[in-house]
């Protein structure tokens, strides 16, 4: 009797043990606990490292000078202190710069989306002599560092009188040579190639010309690609500082104006801060890390907000546009 009980106990123990092992190591159908735990652990830790600079930025920007100097305060400020933001906003002339940033980013982007769609359609839909060479040049121009053609381009713009106006962004965008236009042309190229040929043929049998086919059939079906190109182009123009200050603001040229974007202001943050103190009666607090971080955060805040609302389109863009090739 007793022996039997022990045996049964042993068996249940065995079963339990097996269950535990199965739970930990997983079976063929589902991954085990150890694996899942490991996976989530890694993802969360790396995710934290990813966001670390942002956390650091937000936390530092909310610290007053006392908090900053206090060794015992590391992450959480002793009080909610927004004076840094007010100071930074004043120095950057936030509203004016913000609106100018949007204009500088949006206008060339809209032009770029239109021109890249047309060019991508041309490459995807038609067969013509020299297409392969042109595609080769397209890829090559992506690899080539932009600095090589910077100087002659500057000369050219000076001759055309484009320096110091937004047209120095618009004109290249119009001719498919804007910021990272090669990527966008390729995105449209991939997208239009996946468009069923029969759709286009049907339209042409019904008497639509090439332009009409493009506008009525190709463009409406390319909505996801258009959105992706628009978003990326906007972000990249927004983040561009060197070309903006050289071409649009015309820094150091005769036709210079006071166009400026948030990113450009951030680049010369210390200078503009000192300048503000010089020119105005009202003095700002002397510059410190917190104020710099506040300025940085304000520069990226619009993009973060945009990302918060539209992240689905950003993240799914790579799948949708078929960059990975079908």
């Amino acid at each position, binding site marked *: 009797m007793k022996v039997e009980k022990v045996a049964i106990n042993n068996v249940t123990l065995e079963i339990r043990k097996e269950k535990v092992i199965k739970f930990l190591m997983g079976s063929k159908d589902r991954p085990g606990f150890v694996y899942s735990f490991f996976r989530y652990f890694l993802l969360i830790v790396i995710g934290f490292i990813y966001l670390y600079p*942002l956390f650091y930025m937000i936390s530092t920007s909310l610290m007053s000078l006392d908090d900053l100097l206090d060794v015992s305060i590391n992450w959480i400020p002793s009080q909610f202190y927004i004076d840094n933001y007010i100071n930074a906003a004043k120095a950057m002339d936030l509203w004016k710069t913000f609106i100018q940033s949007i204009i500088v980013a949006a206008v060339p982007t809209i032009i770029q989306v239109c021109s890249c769609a047309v060019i991508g359609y041309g490459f995807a839909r038609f067969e013509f002599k020299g297409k392969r060479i042109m595609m080769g040049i397209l890829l090559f121009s992506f690899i080539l560092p932009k600095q090589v053609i910077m*100087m002659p381009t500057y000369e050219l713009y000076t001759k055309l009188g484009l320096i110091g106006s937004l047209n120095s962004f618009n004109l290249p965008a119009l001719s498919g040579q804007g910021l990272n236009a090669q990527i966008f042309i390729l995105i449209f190229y991939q997208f239009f190639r996946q468009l069923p040929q029969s759709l286009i043929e049907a339209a042409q049998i019904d008497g639509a010309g090439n332009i009409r086919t493009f506008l009525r059939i190709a463009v409406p079906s390319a909505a996801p690609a258009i959105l992706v190109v628009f978003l990326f182009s906007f972000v990249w123009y927004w983040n561009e500082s060197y070309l903006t200050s050289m071409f649009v603001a015309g820094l150091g040229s005769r036709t210079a104006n006071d166009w400026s974007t948030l990113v450009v202001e951030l680049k010369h943050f210390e200078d503009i801060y000192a300048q503000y103190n010089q020119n105005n009666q009202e003095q700002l607090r002397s510059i410190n890390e917190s104020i710099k971080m506040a300025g940085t955060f304000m520069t990226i805040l619009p993009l973060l907000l945009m990302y918060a609302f539209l992240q689905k389109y950003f993240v799914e863009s790579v799948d949708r546009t078929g960059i990975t090739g079908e």
Partner: protein
Amino acid sequence: MKSKVGRKKSGLKRREALAGYMFVSPWIIGVIMFLIVPLGQSFYYSLCSVKVSPKGRKFSYIQFQNYTDIFRLDVTFVENLIRYLLNTLISVPVIVVFALIIAMLLNDKNGKMKGKGFFRTIYFLPVIVVSGPVMMQLADQGATSISAMNVSGITEVLESFLPLFLVEPIVNVFNNMILILWYSGVQILIFLAALQKVDDSLYEAAKIDGGSAWECFWKITLPIIKPMILLNAIYTVIYVSSNEMNVIINSIYNDMFAVNRGFGFASAKAWLYSVVVVVIVGFFAIVLRNKDTYQAEIKKFEKQAAKRERERRRLLRRQARRSKLSRLRIGGGV
């Protein structure tokens, strides 16, 4: 009749081609205006000494002196260029491998994983935020390195068995760990998209044959996503090279408007730099090129089939000719 059909077809083709040129024409104009002509000009500049005078710019041809001057006068540039070369060669594989690991952690086919979208959002976030001035500010504050990591300890260990010129770029990777992670947002997505397109039945077949997950990775996953690895490597090289944090780019910009150096010298620098970039891209393209994959085999096979088909046709034609001849001969005989 036959010729008419042929002409009609070529007419349609011509019309197609014309429409194609029409759609692409903005790009053609743009390329000539903003790429090819400036490229030629900049090469000419790099062979000239450009002097700014009140009447305008004066060019005097001085052959390759600008290029030799880079090595003679601007020692830091050459040093930076070599450092950039080593840094890129080391950090690009790190970025690509890291992106692949993250993509594989995020990849799940059955949709059982929770929070996948959330993680994807986090890992893609830096792509939106990253820009020269922002990174500069963050790097100034030391927010781009992991403070818990003991870099000096790593340096010591590395110095004991590696030559000094290799230690620096590796330490650099550790120092700017977060920056390097931040550069891999797009790459993660590209890998993820590629991983999701891998056919599940391949893994099942491998499992039935007793393949472990480790073997599956090396024998199935890696060969299939190999083209994506090349794409990502090239993308990373270009991303790193056109970055505003890059010391070389800044030195080129500064020389452009410097009085003593000027356009010619800056152009020569830019040309040297682009040669280095193209060489790096070429290096990765050669290392990661598609050797002997399934697709290549298919292509080879198709080529052979086409050749056989051609030969068969030729034989048929010859036979037809012969029979015609013999028939003629017979006819003539009669």
